């Protein structure tokens, strides 16, 4: 099996071959002695050349992070056989930008009106969750093209609140 793995934005090529005692592993063309056991779901006990690592997996709808000890690595795995297409690239700095709710909550206040000119970092909407009011800010300087949030409405994580162009 061959995997293209991006770790913290850097590509690695990993070849894994099932052999008697475990897995034969080549990383970026170099053979590595690897022994792996899954003591439980989402936790991997990994031995690499005698060094021991407990690796934990943090999987969301869009992201995969691996914690090696207490260091967190953003990881993307492309298995040639995988059906999942790669996520689209990062949003462009130019053009319209959607402002989304970073967590579920309730919209308590709109801070600007449609059509307003805003600075990068200026608050657009206040969403309350867990007894805290959180200002959702504009990622760029521009004009508020649209406000889809309405005061008092419940929102889910990822819901579009406004668009700045």
């Amino acid at each position, binding site marked *: 099996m061959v995997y293209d793995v991006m770790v913290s934005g850097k590509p690695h090529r990993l070849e894994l071959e099932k052999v008697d005692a475990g897995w034969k592993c080549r990383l*970026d063309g170099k053979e590595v002695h690897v022994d792996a056991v899954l003591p439980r779901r989402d936790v991997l006990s990994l031995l690499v050349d005698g060094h021991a690592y407990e690796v934990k997996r943090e999987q969301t709808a869009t992201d995969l992070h*691996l914690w090696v000890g*207490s260091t967190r690595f953003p*990881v993307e*795995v492309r298995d040639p056989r995988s059906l999942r297409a790669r996520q689209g690239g990062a949003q462009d700095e130019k053009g319209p930008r959607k402002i989304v709710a970073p*967590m579920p909550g309730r919209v308590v206040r709109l801070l600007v009106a449609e059509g307003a000119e805003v600075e990068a970092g200026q608050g657009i909407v206040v969403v309350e*969750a867990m007894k805290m009011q959180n200002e959702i800010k504009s990622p760029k300087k521009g004009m508020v093209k649209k406000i889809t949030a309405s005061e008092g409405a419940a929102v889910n994580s990822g819901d579009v609140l406004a668009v700045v162009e």
Partner: protein
Amino acid sequence: MFKKILIANRGEIAVRVMRACREMGISTVAVYSDVDRAALHVRKADEAYPIGPAQASESYLRVDKILDVAKRSGAEAIHPGYGFLSENARFAQACADAGIKFIGPTPQSMEMMGSKTRARQHMEKAGIPFVPGTARGLASPEEAEQVAERVGYPVMLKAAAGGGGKGMRLVHSRPELRQALESAQSEAQRSFGDSEVYIEKAIVNPRHIEMQILADEHGNTVWLGERECSIQRRHQKVLEEAPSPIVDADMRRRMGEVAVRVAQAANYTNAGTIEFLVDQQKNFYFLEMNTRLQVEHPVTELTTGLDLVHLQIKIASGEKLPFTQADVGIRGHAIECRIYAEDPDNNYFPSPGKIDVLLQPSGPGIRRDSGMYEGWTVPMDYDPLLAKLIGFGTDREQAIMRLERALYEYFVAGIKTNISLFRRILRDHDFRAGKLDTGFLDRMLAKADPGPTARAPEPRIAAIAAGMFAVLEPPAAGAKDGNAAATQPTASNWKERGRAEALR
């Protein structure tokens, strides 16, 4: 002793109080809102009753509903925990009227300490040290100028009805004063409907240090040592420790004696905390009294060897304090980390949701008071405090080392937590040196994160692990396996299986 206690709270503190009750052979009654049916405090109780919708104002803050459950279940006492109704004198009075013991002070003591200016007026009479300033609102700009001259600049203007930084202004010199006063007054009016503003000398880089007291209903009051609570974000405590790195035995005794005088002046009973501001010359000034159990009470328990909740219950049931001031000893050092559901990488936004993976630390010197479990969905409706991790050591250094070890073992996936923030704090040079004040955390966060230490693993390990995970436990299947079973798991299981298989 009580046979049955209702716990009018949720989360880790409800679990903590229920544990104490079970230890004392007392039955527990839980109340829960619609989104808390599967919460840990309901699992741990002997009885549990629903009290309405998620919104606290319709459930955990509803005096009538809670008293109704208490009567129906035959509870003889109510423990309010912290937050919610714990400092609500009306609730304490309603309990008394219903013949149910409120585990805390009397409504009269709570009233007295509930308003900052009222408390200040009472306490000044009792000779308690305050930050120099006025105990009541300023009548005119001229009076403001006179007081500021007397206490010396910089001064702080504060709204009498205030809180959360609203109506507050720091004034460095006389020319700034008049305009600052006007703007503070109008902000106070807008925010609280009350323009009363008073002046205090501004304490530069103060520490926030508080003193725990216990008072029984027979006139005995003791202090149990201080807690250093200077590490705060948005006026919210994040990490507390006992003892304070700057308090020696003499200062502790002096603070303790003042705290006992405050409590006695308020006819205080049960557990309470006197908060002080401490300036750079180690002068301490009364700030306010918290008339309830504090979130951070465990650090006092670990350094004194006492159980404050056991003692609260004993006091409420009419027992005398089982020890005197001379018996109280402080030993070792304890530090508490408040584990919040918030995202350190995204401006500490709250992060409710389902906990997919939870690995919890244990072992020597580690206490864990938690309200969460793997598979639980953290509701968006309440305070983001999930759990408290408390490290104890022979000395401060060992307590820090043990907490670092325990944080290394702690892992939460599915929601974000501030666990990584504590790693940063505990590594910080100023923190290690005990150089703390209420501005510490903002300063630390303004600096670039020094990032992983020298012993951090290489990215190639993550690359290998990613491949091994893909081979040993493909994500689709993995995500399913661990789900806490839903009410009707059969249908959804079938669906997810089909999906998992299609991916192969």
